[in-house]
């Protein structure tokens, strides 16, 4: 069962992560995103509201998505990252590379 859902509003693709961003779901999401970006997308927003954990492959996916969008002069952003995720993203300076915003209400995850 997919752990994410993808919706589109014009040239903007929204990815809602339902559970955790790790392992096989990353591979599935990579393929899905690749297909979306190939069809005239200028921005991708990844919503981590439902995610508790992001592993190294999840981080790699975020960077790869960001790199892919840069190549097409598009934009990649992440919203609703938990405190813990924000702390990890900051320590890896992902926050300097990707527009990441924190989950409102400060839910830890």
């Amino acid at each position: 069962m997919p752990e994410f859902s993808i919706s589109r509003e014009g040239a903007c693709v929204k990815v809602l992560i339902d559970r955790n961003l790790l392992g096989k779901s990353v591979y599935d999401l990579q393929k899905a995103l690749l297909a979306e970006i190939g069809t005239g997308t200028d921005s991708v927003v990844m919503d981590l509201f439902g995610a508790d954990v992001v592993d190294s492959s999840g981080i790699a996916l975020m960077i790869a998505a960001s790199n892919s969008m840069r190549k097409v002069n598009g934009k990649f952003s992440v919203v609703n990252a938990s405190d813990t995720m924000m702390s990890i993203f900051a320590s890896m300076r992902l926050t300097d590379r990707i527009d990441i915003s924190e989950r409102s209400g400060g839910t830890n995850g």
Partner: protein
Amino acid sequence: MADDLLMEFINESLEHLADIETDLLAVEEAGANVDMELVNKVFRAAHSIKGGSSFFALNSVKELAHKTETVLDMLRTKVMAPDPEITNVLLAAFDRLRELLLHTDTAGNADVSDLVVGLVKLAESYSSPLNRNAINTTVTFNAEAKSTPVDIPLVDLQRVRRARQYVYVVKLDLVHDVERTGKTVLEIFKDMDATGEVLDCRIDFDAIGTLDGELSKKLPLQLYFATVMDPMVVNGLFDIADEGLVKIFDPRDPPLPGEIVAPTEEVAITEPIIQQTKATEPEIASENEVNMPVEAMEPAAVKETRSKAMIDETIRVNVNLLELLMNLAGELVLGRNQLRTAVGTQDQQALVIADQRVSQVTSELQNAIMQTRLQPVGNVFSKFPRVVRDTSIQLGKEIELEIIGKEVALDRSMIEGLSDPLTHMVRNSVDHGIETPDIRAKSGKPRVGNVRIEAMHEAGQVVIEIGDDGKGIDPKVIADSAVRKGLLSADKVAGMSDADKVALIFLPGLSTAEKLTDISGRGVGMDVVKTNIDRLGGTVEISSKVGEGTLFRIKLPLTLAIIPSLIVSVEDELFALPQINIVELLRIPAEEVKRRIEVVGGAEVLLLRDRIIPLVRFGELLGIAPTYIDPKTGKREIDRRLLSADRRSPKQTIDGQVEGGEPPAGAKSWTRKTDGRRGNVSSMLDIAVLTTGTQEMAVVVGRFHDTEEIVVKPLGVHLKALHEYAGATILGNGTVALIVDVGGLAAKADLASVSGSARAKARAASADLVDTSHTMLLFHNTPDEICAVPLDVVRRIEHIAPEAVETKGGKRTMKYRGASLPLVTLSDAANVGTVPSDAELAVIVTSVADREIGLLGAMPVDVVTSEMNIDTETHRQPGIAGSTLIRDNTTLLVDLFDLVDSVYPEWRRPKTVRPQTIVLPGEGSNEPQSVAASQPTVLLAEDSDFFRSQIKRYLEEDGWKVYAGVDGEDAWEILLEHVGEVNAVVTDIEMPRLDGLGLSARIRKDERTKHLRILALTSLAGEEDIKRGKDIGIDDYQVKLDRDRLLDGLHKLASAGVR
């Protein structure tokens, strides 16, 4: 969102900047005599800010910090000398950096061009035209095809080449190598900066690729790291896989485009270096060796740490911990309120509850505050890779450094205090411990030596071990060195165990290095190491095995502020013994005291299982008057009796033997030692066995109390000179207790011969000289005539009433222990006054010709020990051996044997020596042969004029011909002159130049003299001394000035023939 890592970087950077202004002004003031350490400190601040800002993508900060670094590098290489203009530009740059760091949200692309241009122009104005180009030039490196290229400024590469460093790209995975190891990138920066220089860093996001490729699970962090280390060393040091390290610059490579390598103004920088660099030095030297050849051996990281320690007067505390402290403070207030209410209502149960609450909160508060001060010991350890690497390169050694337990936490002040001693010990291991690869290979060891540093917790203390698998410490070499340098006598050293000899390395002034080196100092280090560790409340032990290695073991309390201690009392006074110094506690029942406490060499020792430990009586040592409860009044009174044995029973001697008979009527009886024992005890003894790390001692205390965690309060200025105390504390019941400094106590008791203090050295030296002084009993003949007898011949002193003296038949006697004791006075033989009839009389009981006899004198009596110049001529007459000045009074030295011979000539000992046939070994064979009868001759070796003249006279009166030498060396020369005449040797033990043991050993080794009988005279007649002497070949021991025993002993030896 709190970006903790960025906050940490900002806080650290602001700390670096805090003293920059002062430092830059000090640099300017020094002008051409620039303080290199200070410039380095400022340079490191700029460098550290540059490194961090590159990671945080604070590009403007990075650019400004880099240009500042360039100018500072020109200052430290003396290309430019500090002046106000330079200082102004630098101050403005640092001000701006501070401002940018306080506003990092806008700092990334802030405009700093004005300052950057100013700094560049300044640098250019001091550069040659050819080199100016380098300031604005960068060299592009590309670690791998997928990566984004990185530009390194050419000036940085010139600096790197000058320092003969390589540049590597160190590739780490931010996820696996950083995040999951619990490290931060800033910590990695610090580790690398301790052994080199991080030129730049970047996260290679591009290396991850895009969605259309296979995703890399690695998030590569690339560090551009300049260092002199080989790739293998870098790999090992930072635990980097081979593929994670790429060398991109080699200082031996041809110059880069636009790079000026040697001539032009660079000559000015490198000329002194070239002069200082020896041909034999390794090809690659560190940057600091280049820039500061004179004190080049100290890595910059070491200096940096030291400088930081000096200025670092603030600590950063985790906010959560602060909140915990706040909560606890609130709890404490609640507890206090509860306590007040309970006191006000006199509610006992509420008091108990309040007490429990306050106790609990106080404990938690103490723990929390302790945590604010604790820092990982790795802060000190981090500099050792550099220290070991630099030192080993310089010495041509191959050394692997193993560091364990970096995370062990210690009080901040301890960490700072440990830095220097640990560095010295690590350097010692590298310099003196580990052998060169060739020597190791010859000994069957791996070519690469191992130095291991480990920190661990052990029984509430922190233990730090520094070990190596080098050549170890040879106790004999250390002992010989100590003797050669006059720090200890050969006699003293001969009685030491190997462990004690090894511990002599802590003596001030001892260095066994055949060649002095710059690495480990000049023989003044290990005593300072011990003193510093003592100061930290710690102990240091050493164990070493020749050929296998050495291990130093340092034990430290977790904090200096609060130390667990055992409270003991002596009389009414309380003392705290730090638990770190306590080995074990003993309670010896009265009936075992005699068996467990012995006297060796005139001092008490405790026999503890298979060990002999010097015993110190705490009260006596500190001069605390003994007291007793008067059974009649119930009051505590001062016990005025002189010796502890007297407190038990007037009938019992110091040996614990019951004397026969009663003291004379009206007599107060003092018993005196007959064999040199100082005291005994009447009841159970509480003994604390303490250690300074190198020296154990047993301390008799009055009573053990509880253990307490005490808060250390420093002693006031007026008490600072009392080295036996480390401080004072207020105990739970409000009383004050002094905290014992065990090292100081050992020194005070003359035990600390291996202490690191100069005080101990002085004491050790004075202990060596003890044999040149005399201990005399003083008494009065008339009020104006002060007399003295050697204390060794005194058995007891009786205080008697005048009517106790009976005169019959011209002879005086007194009743004494059921018999009649003959009495003599000095006036019976010598031309002196008579003891006044109304004087308070003292009878000095001694033994002559196997009979007890009393010397009648007048009170007061006293005992003094001092060096004496004895005049054996001016006052010499029957009964008086000579005179000396004691406390500015001319004092007559009584010759008891001579006096008694005059009064009781019939007691006089018949001559025991007659002309006889002397048996000597046959010439050229070991077979004895007889020679003609002649006067028996004895060689006497004695350095004390007084004893020499006395003993010589005894011997001559007994029929011996005497040759006398003033020390062992003199006696040996005399012996060689009269080798055919001398039949026996009588020698003192402790003498300058050559002592009695040395003389005896020489006699036994020489074919011409080895047959001679040797009798040693000494006050040191403990079993250990006797055994040692007999092992060397001494035939008999006699106590000095016991004429009869000396002559009997000599007669027996003469009768026994040659050996």
